[in-house]
């Protein structure tokens, strides 16, 4: 019995249509072992987690828990099989009180109360409504509920994101103590410091496959970064990476900006004619940063200056009026799917109240035609944007601002999920916009893009800027190390 691992998942594969999310994932956890599950963005980590927790059924693969073959058809079945997850987002029911949430999972109340106290939450009443509790408390309650059900295997998915330091310490201490009593733990995290403090082993995923198992020992960070990157196919280098002059008043000056819950303290300058990359792992505060700049969300601290003038946005229209243009990563957020390419490109003309009234058809047509031609948008299906390919849709979301004439462009992962050919058309477009005098903030989840499109990049970790890297030395290992908060060993590249 001691030889068989507590959890054994092998040959796990899953495709969504033509997209192979997982091709051969493998993970074993022994009794009392804490295993970190690592992988860069898009490595298949989240799909693997969904399969392990029963939220998604795999196409192939065998999962056994404590020697029994486990059928993970639903989260309820996964629970019965002995694997209990704590998700990135709280999975407590907002409109029920704490006690009802416990009953829903048949969680023993006494054990739950014990764990809550052990994890350092005081003053909790079982009659408290979940919707009234702060986020950090909910994460702890989620963990306490999972622990109280006495699982064989505990899966923690980015458990410590958005937790204050003292609670993180409590979590690590309690999880370690519980593992020492024989529980197996899968620890999904981006944070090397926590992984090296807590875990015994790390399993690394890349391109949908398990590519290695690493003992946690000094220097393991470099091995892990290597494994996560693998041999990436180069996307082609940018020619003449001219570093634009960074003089005069910056277009955008951000000082000590913070926004709940994840953006803690960010400062940087963005000049006209510059493309500034933003590099961060998922959920390090970049969403909040872009939301504040686009006027979707108000900052909680810090200042924002545009061309030397202090600014604060109460509504997206104010950000647009100040020349800040946001292109979301999710194309569905930006486009009117059922309307034509032309209308979508023309929207910013008419979206400004002062332009209400009859639309100047001729001018609109001239400008949209120009944008379509320059973007090489495939117009065969231009009647409805939703019938275009993802890449062409993304070109429309950028193209509408090209037609308007853009001052400051906020690109949030503009190349997510589009093909390499279209990506290659988008980088020169971004450069061209910058050369015309636009200031571009460019968040990307694909590290290789920094060299291709940016002049330099800021790296955000845990809500703070931890590094600023010039494009010249922004190779993937350097960026990856910085993104994981490993700035101590700077200068490796």
């Amino acid at each position, binding site marked *: 019995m001691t030889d068989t691992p507590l959890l054994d998942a092998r040959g796990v594969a899953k495709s969504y249509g033509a997209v192979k999310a997982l091709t051969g994932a493998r993970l074993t956890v022994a009794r009392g072992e804490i295993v970190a599950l690592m992988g860069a963005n898009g490595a298949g980590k989240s799909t693997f987690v969904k399969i392990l927790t029963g939220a998604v059924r795999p196409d192939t693969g065998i999962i056994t828990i404590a020697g029994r073959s486990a059928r993970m058809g639903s989260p*309820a079945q996964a629970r019965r099989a002995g694997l209990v997850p704590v998700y990135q987002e709280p999975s407590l029911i907002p*409109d*029920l009180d704490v006690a009802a949430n416990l*009953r829903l*999972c048949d969680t023993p109340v006494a054990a739950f109360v014990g764990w809550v106290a052990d994890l350092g939450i005081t003053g909790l009443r079982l*009659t408290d409504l979940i919707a009234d509790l702060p986020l950090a408390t909910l994460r702890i309650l989620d963990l306490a509920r999972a622990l109280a059900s006495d699982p064989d295997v505990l899966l923690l998915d980015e458990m410590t994101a958005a937790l204050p330091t003292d609670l993180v310490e409590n979590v690590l201490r309690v999880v370690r103590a519980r593992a020492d009593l024989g529980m197996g733990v899968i620890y999904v995290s981006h944070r090397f410091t926590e992984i090296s403090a807590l875990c015994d082993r790390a399993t690394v995923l890349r391109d949908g496959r398990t590519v290695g198992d690493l003992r946690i020992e000094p220097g393991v960070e470099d091995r892990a970064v290597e494994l996560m990157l693998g041999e990436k196919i180069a996307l082609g280098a940018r020619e003449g990476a001219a570093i634009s002059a960074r003089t005069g008043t910056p277009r955008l000056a951000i000082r000590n900006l913070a926004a709940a819950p994840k953006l803690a303290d960010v400062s940087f300058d963005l000049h006209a004619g510059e493309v500034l990359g933003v590099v961060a792992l998922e959920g390090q505060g970049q969403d909040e940063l872009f939301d504040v700049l686009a006027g979707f969300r108000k900052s909680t601290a810090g200042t924002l200056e545009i061309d030397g003038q202090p600014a604060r946005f109460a509504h997206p229209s104010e950000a647009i009026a100040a020349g800040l243009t946001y292109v979301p990563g999710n194309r569905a957020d930006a486009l009117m799917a059922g309307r034509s390419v032309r209308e979508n490109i023309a929207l910013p003309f008419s979206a400004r109240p002062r332009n209400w009234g009859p639309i100047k058809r001729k001018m609109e047509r001239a400008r949209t035609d120009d944008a379509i031609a320059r973007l090489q948008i495939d117009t065969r299906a231009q009647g409805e944007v939703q019938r275009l390919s993802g890449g062409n849709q993304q070109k429309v979301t950028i193209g509408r601002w090209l037609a308007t004439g853009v001052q400051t462009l906020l690109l949030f992962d503009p190349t997510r999920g589009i093909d390499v050919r279209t990506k290659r058309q988008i980088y020169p477009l971004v450069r061209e916009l910058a050369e015309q005098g636009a200031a571009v903030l460019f968040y990307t989840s694909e590290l290789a893009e920094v060299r291709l499109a940016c002049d330099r990049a800021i790296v955000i970790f845990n809500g703070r800027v931890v590094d600023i890297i010039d494009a010249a030395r922004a190779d993937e290992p350097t960026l990856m190390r910085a993104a994981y908060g490993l700035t101590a060993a700077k200068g490796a590249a």
Partner: protein
Amino acid sequence: MTALIRKHAWVIGLAVLLALLLALTKLIQPNFGAPGLESLARSALPFAFATAAMAVVVIVGGIDLSVASMMAVCAVTAAVLMERMAGVPALMIVLAVGLAMGLVNGALIVLTRVPDIVVTLAMLFVWEGMALLILSSPGGSVAPWLSGATRGPFLIDGLPMALVIMALAIAIVWLPIRRSKLGLAIYATGSDPLAAFRSGVAVDRTKIIAYGICGLFCAMGGLSLAALTGIGEPVPGPYLMASVAAVVLGGVVLGGGKGGLLGSIIAVFILRIIRTILTLMAIDPNVTTIVEGVIMVGVVMLGTALTLRGARR
């Protein structure tokens, strides 16, 4: 104690409002008494069942536009069956028919992944047609004991039989569910389907069952219609919009997860008695509907404002 009051603030508020309105009625019409209460309770009977039906599906996060049609199917089924067979088995069959129709609605929504509002809109027409197939014009007859059951007082004068039947029928179905894990699952699914799924709730099954309960309440509504009129009426009555109105006024949040049946039933009586008061005051019936609408918006707005202020404190 204060926590209990806060938790049920909406229901208590509605009860107070109802008491005030009853007092107002007595003031306008000094001879308003036991007979007035009885006719109020009797007229509210089908509305109450329709509202209970609607409340359950709204709590689970859906909506059922076919409640009035299902009630019509059940009413004509009852009238046709009771002409030919004993009352009690016929009653059981009608309840089963209602349950089955509800389950069909729920299963269609879950299996096709088409939005609730679209599926039940389509089923509104399907059930309406079924009712007309069963009985093309008002007819049939109802067991005399069923018609008699809604009349008169229960034990003491001033406690209408119709009210007792309503309370019993709804309590017998809903209370055991509300106290069980199924009830919890219904609220959980309506509140946050993803979190419920992750907590191990069988979300799809819960949804189908909730629609089944809705159908069961519709059957009761249909039976009460047949009992009140003595015959079966195949054309659906004005119960769809009235039930949505009562549910909203009753504190059930459209979107799911919040509220309960008690508040919704009290809201039915509030809406009925407002109508009575306006009639007593000899106000133009066309103005009556405007007043009803304004009161509804007003009460919900006021309630939301009060709840928000309470939450901020």
